[in-house]
């Protein structure tokens, strides 16, 4: 967890510097639909099952130097047990002639949130989902359209996304149960007697097609 926090902080700082330098330059928007492919381990057994999950991604960035864009990344990933909304930063780089297809490389990283997942609470217990820092490098191609200023893209990459499902039992004392933010060190949140936690690290191969403009 600490390592991912370091990556996140580094990316934020580096990107802020670059974005500050990019003033009146070109912008780039990319929308993609994708498939996340992985193998899930069935909890408390030695068996695996394949998964193929839907993903959507949006990027908007500014050109920081020729053929390099830095900007914001948002998305939606529909994993088997949780729906994640990644929010982070992205980089796109291109190699090739000005006219014609180019080789495309990219990196998205940030925090996968669980805003779509409801927290449930009874008098005795609370259940909720937590996300985590995500990391998604990829390589692909960009194929400009014959007419208009847009291009078709396709890429393959890797996406790492941790997520947890938690169920805690309330301590029935004066202290109200409080679900603490993910960065807190305490192993048991305030107001809880016990906590069941299932942590999954999703390692996915991600194939995406999209448009660039």
């Amino acid at each position, binding site marked *: 967890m600490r390592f991912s926090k370091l990556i996140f902080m580094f990316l934020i700082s580096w990107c802020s510097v670059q974005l500050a330098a990019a003033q009146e330059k070109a912008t780039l928007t990319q929308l993609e639909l994708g498939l996340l*492919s*992985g193998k899930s381990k069935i*909890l408390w057994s030695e068996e695996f099952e394949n998964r193929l999950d839907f993903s959507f991604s949006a990027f908007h960035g500014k050109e920081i130097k020729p053929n390099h864009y830095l900007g914001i990344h948002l998305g939606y990933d529909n994993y088997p047990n949780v729906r994640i909304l990644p929010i982070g930063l992205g980089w796109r780089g291109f190699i090739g002639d000005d006219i014609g297809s180019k080789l495309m490389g990219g990196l998205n990283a940030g925090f996968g949130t669980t805003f779509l997942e409801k927290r449930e609470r009874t008098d005795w217990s609370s259940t909720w989902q937590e996300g985590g820092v995500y990391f998604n490098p990829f390589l692909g*191609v960009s194929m400009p359209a014959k007419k208009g200023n847009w291009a078709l893209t*396709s890429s393959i990459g890797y996406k790492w996304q941790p997520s947890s499902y938690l169920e805690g039992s309330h301590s029935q004392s004066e202290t109200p149960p409080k679900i603490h933010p993910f960065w807190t060190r305490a192993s048991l949140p305030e107001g809880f007697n016990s906590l*069941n936690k299932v942590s*999954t690290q999703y*390692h996915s191969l991600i194939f995406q097609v999209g448009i660039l403009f």
Partner: protein
Amino acid sequence: MKLFHLKIALVLLASTLLFSCTDEVNATYTFRTMMPIYLEMKDVRTKSLAPIPAQEIENPGKIYIYNNYLLINEPSKGIHIYDNKNPANPINLSFIPIEGNVDLAINSNILYADNYVDLLAFDISNIQNIRLVKRVEDVFTHLYQHSTGKIITFKDTVLTIDSPSWEYDGMWTVRPGMSLLANMAKASQSYGTGGSMARFTLMDGHLFAVDQNTLRVFDVESPAEPKFLKPIDLGWGIETIFPFDQKLFIGSNRGLHIYDASNPAAPKRIAIYEHVLSCDPVVVNEDYAFVTLRSGNFCVNGVNELHVLDIKDPYQPKLLKAYPMLNPHGLGLAENYLYVAEGKHGLKSFNASDVLTIDKNQLEFLQSMKSVDLIPGPKSLIVIGPDGVCQYDYSNPAKLRKLSCIQVSNPIEVS
């Protein structure tokens, strides 16, 4: 070129479908529990008992007023000493580190305190130079784990384990909220100088100590030389002891036992007033005993009431009246004024001169004063609750005035 790129795209898609990475799944269970810690008394006896500089109170336990001093037990850890000459400004003087200590009583400048199975006597005639004068060994022997010959004590711990299956809370762990034996802090919560939830008490040159089922008698005619006399079996569910007029009023969760202690070396039971299963603090005066019954963690199936018993004939205590209450914990009597700590509901004061109309003579109901016990002291009414240890001016019984609060870092949970 375009076709080439399209082919690459198809190859990429195919590889995504054919090759994929494996997720990692890990289940853990984190829980709060009391970890047993085993101790040898021979190691405990070598620890220094010399007072150390003042420490902050974490959990207030038994409280004792002695002259201008306030002594507050920190369950299982020791005793804090406060200069209480001015109740509006109690000064934290020092701390006596005593492992396993849950109770104390003071007689003629001698402080008695338990140290797991031993009884200690300290000379406190010079508060700046407190010294141990006597150790009576192997008295509270119920604390020994016979199978191991060691003392068992419990430490509040949070553990995380890999979980082979979904764990349900409370099935097999020792839960702090539920285990009387395991949680010394809860068990010895809030008592006073003859406060209504006391477990050590002094009368007629003798020290009486109760635990869950035994009354232990010590001869302290020579205060610095306590002598253990005998244990007396009391049955079970014993909780509190209140001495008055050569009698001992012992509260259990099934009733009130009255013992004749005119021969303090050999107390004899003379009566028992039984009631439903409830927790049971008691205070008495010459004619009446006031008993609070409450429902709560250990007192399942209980009721919430104040019972007034006629004890003019101690062999035949009679219930005079039962008043419904909210969740009464400890209580205190100062002349004709009765104070009842109503747990999270607050604090009530009554003029109890007519015991049959106590409810019609309620003086104040201070809902902000959550409290579990109180002690009417000579200079102040001491109230123990989630705010810590607070003192009130009660010279006007109808209008309590807050003087000070000693903050504690781990306030009492009022349940």
